[in-house]
């Protein structure tokens, strides 16, 4: 009996060793490609939110994490990329979370130029209903483009809402919870940017420890 237990254990150990080796070899073989893909995906999602901004270097160079508690949508730790041209701040990218989406939080990337106008909005992640709320992504409708060039004063506070609520922005037909969440998140981020702009650009770059 104890002998069969020992031999079973040995078999299990040998197979586990072989399987671990297999995974380790694959990991080594794919690691660099995966890291490159992730970096490319990040840069690729960041670039479109900086339409019309001239900047130098990589977008992800000057990273800042604004810790919770803060007045940003989602009220959690928020990732910000600051973009410079010849050491002058030109824009900031906020990766915020709109907490009140229809099916959970919506990750929104908001580009804001130094003067406070929106340079672009992109949806980073969402779980909205396919065919309804998911039309907010840039590949499926023009929803996110209507914010380009807008700022805190344009439109005024009442205008920062969907048309059904008396605002100036187009809604997604059949889905009003989703656009409300996104519009609120953008406005809240603009308010935060307006109040803390100098602190954001003067803060030291956060490391990669997060």
């Amino acid at each position, binding site marked *: 009996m104890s002998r*069969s237990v020992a*031999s*079973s254990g040995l*078999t*299990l150990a040998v*197979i*586990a060793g072989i*399987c*671990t080796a*297999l*995974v380790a070899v*694959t*990991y080594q073989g*794919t690691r660099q*490609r*995966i890291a490159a*893909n*992730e970096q490319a*995906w990040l840069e690729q999602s960041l670039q479109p939110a900086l339409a019309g901004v001239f900047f130098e270097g990589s977008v992800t160079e000057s990273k800042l994490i604004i810790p919770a508690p803060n007045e940003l949508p989602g009220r959690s730790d928020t990732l910000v990329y600051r973009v410079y041209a010849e050491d002058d701040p030109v824009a900031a990218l906020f990766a915020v979370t709109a907490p009140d989406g229809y099916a959970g939080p919506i990750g929104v990337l908001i580009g804001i130029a130094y003067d406070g106008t929106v340079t672009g909005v992109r949806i980073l992640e969402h779980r909205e*209903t*396919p*065919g*309804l709320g998911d039309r907010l992504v840039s*590949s499926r409708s023009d929803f996110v483009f209507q914010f380009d060039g807008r700022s805190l004063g344009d439109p005024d506070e009442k205008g920062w809402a969907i048309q059904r609520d008396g605002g100036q922005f187009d809604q997604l037909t059949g889905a009003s919870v989703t656009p409300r969440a996104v519009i609120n998140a953008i406005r809240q981020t603009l308010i935060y940017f307006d109040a803390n702009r100098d602190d954001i650009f003067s803060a030291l770059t956060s490391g990669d420890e997060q």
Partner: protein
Amino acid sequence: MNTSNFIDRLRSGLWTDNPGLVQLLGLCPLLAVTTSFVNGLGLGLATLFVLTFSNALVSATRRWIQPEIRIPIYVLIIASLVTCIELIFKAWFPSLDRSLGIFIPLIVTNCAIVARAEVFASRNTVVSSVADGIGMGAGFTVLLIAIGFFRELIGQGSILSRLDMLVGGEPLPGLTLMDGGWLLAILPPGAFFSLALAVAAKSAIDQRRRTGKRAAMQGTMRPSIRG
């Protein structure tokens, strides 16, 4: 193993014992990812790959493995293969990986794979186990892409959209027949309806075939009765 045996395994996987249509195994990924053709194809190919290699490994080690520890060993083998597949997808098909999300790692829990290890690979030679893995994997893939094609067509009004997720390069919109479709087909109930239709269609074809055979047999018998 000869070719007729190989064709037998293929036919079994694709039709008579199709894992999705007949054994009704692996329904969780089947129902969840078949919102489009390319998703179905991606997950189908990943499953086919895992199934073929897990069958081969289980069959190759079947003589050394004590029966009481076979299940943990199957799980080990399958989990390692799936981890490798996940890494390969992340490295070479990143957008498909984002689209399939959790369903790649969940191939581990696809009971069709453990079922083939237990029912077939642990009792047959490596070659026929590989053939079985290819047959069953192909059967699962064909069902996934058929349902994905159908749901995408009805639900989004498009055909073969986003194939670039698999082949790479510029985004390919596919063929758009109408803007938007009947939403229900994309939502979970649409998955159940589509699968039910597929199972019903298979039964109908089988039945027609049987009655056809009977009629043919009666046709050949009739002269002898008359005579």
